[in-house]
């Protein structure tokens, strides 16, 4: 039976591809290794550009407009640990192939794939959705004094900290015609169910009602001046904010602020790289011609493929080691 690839795409031939196992005499590397390092060099430029953009945007941000402490640090820490473990298991999978232990290779590769899937699942089903249900309003500076009890700028000034212009929490009521009316209605029902209070919806049609985050519920509390590892629960205190006093209002989505725009861009791009790595690992793990079937005919070639995929995976994990502290901790 003829090869369907060469039949329909005649420029592909069945010719032997050179230097898949042996090193090229001119470079001293097998071809794929040179290829992956050229690719990783382009990736360094891609992520390097984004990190540079982040640094300049952060340095140029007006005081009080760069949020902090809004991400879930324990979840981020767990995801970081998962990626570090997956880097160890991918090296073990490669070493197992070098020792011609197919069973161990399959096991370690499976663990690597599962780690990658856990990382993506946590990100897409927990971390990101939690942000899309969190709401923040930036108060106009000239109206900020009206909301001092929620902003605590006197305390921040006295302690030499940047001012605060945002009031955040869960939206319980939104001005008429707002995009967030449905979400507010859902949150208000939940709030009433949890607390037995039904005062979250105001008769005024141009008010935002927010169930406050701890930082806005007690803005002068010294406990709020330091970062917290474990997320502090939302308080039951409510703030009513007039729409005319609001500069901008949004859930914690890219439109909320430059911080969240860069957060979603960089973590989203990183997530796509993790997905790409998982697909390649699955191909090498399943009994495809280029996957574990290759072990029967040329185990060293399979080991080289795993090494290449492993180099990519290490790069992706290394990027996360930089992403995590700059977004979650600093």
């Amino acid at each position, binding site marked *: 039976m003829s090869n369907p690839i060469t039949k329909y795409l005649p420029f592909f031939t069945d010719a032997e591809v050179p230097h898949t196992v042996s090193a090229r005499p001119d470079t001293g590397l097998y071809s794929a290794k040179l290829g992956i390092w050229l690719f990783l060099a382009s990736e360094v430029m891609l992520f390097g550009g984004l990190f540079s953009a982040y640094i300049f945007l952060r340095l140029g941000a007006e005081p009080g407009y760069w949020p902090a402490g809004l991400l879930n640090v324990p979840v981020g820490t767990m995801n970081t640990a998962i990626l*570090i473990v997956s*880097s160890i298991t991918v090296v073990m999978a490669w070493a197992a192939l*070098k020792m011609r232990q197919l069973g161990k290779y399959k096991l370690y590769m499976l663990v690597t794939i599962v780690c990658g899937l856990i990382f993506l699942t946590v990100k897409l089903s927990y971390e990101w959705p939690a942000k899309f249900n969190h709401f923040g309003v930036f108060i106009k500076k000239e109206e900020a004094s009206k909301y001092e009890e929620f902003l605590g700028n006197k305390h921040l000034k006295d302690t030499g900290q940047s001012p605060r212009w945002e009031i955040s929490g869960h939206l319980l009521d939104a001005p008429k015609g707002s995009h967030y009316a449905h979400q507010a209605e859902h949150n208000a029902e939940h709030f009433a169910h949890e607390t037995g209070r039904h005062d979250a919806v105001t008769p005024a049609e141009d008010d935002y009602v927010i169930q406050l985050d701890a930082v806005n519920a007690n803005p002068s509390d010294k406990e709020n001046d330091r*970062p917290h*590892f474990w997320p502090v629960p939302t308080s039951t205190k409510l703030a009513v904010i007039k729409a005319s006093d609001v500069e901008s209002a949004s859930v914690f989505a890219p439109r909320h602020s430059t911080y969240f725009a860069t957060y979603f861009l960089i973590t989203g791009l990183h997530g796509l790289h993790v997905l790409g790595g998982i697909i390649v690992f699955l191909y090498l793990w399943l009994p495809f011609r280029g996957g574990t079937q290759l072990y029967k005919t040329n185990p060293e070639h399979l080991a080289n493929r795993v090494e290449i995929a492993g180099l990519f995976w290490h790069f992706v994990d*290394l990027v996360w080691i930089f992403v995590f502290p700059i977004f979650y901790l600093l």
Partner: protein
Amino acid sequence: MSLKAFHLVFILVSILFSAGMALWAFKTGASDGLGLGCSAASVLMAVYCVRFVIKSKSIIT
């Protein structure tokens, strides 16, 4: 650079990251438990790093 060498670089960066996070946790008062956990993780990874170098000598060139 082989996967072995890149893995060593990655583990060294992870050790530095873990130590940095421990420092952050202690200095800011975010969580002493986290600080201790990250310190322990740094030590464990350093031990792993040494063991990896020794063991991989005979397996991976």
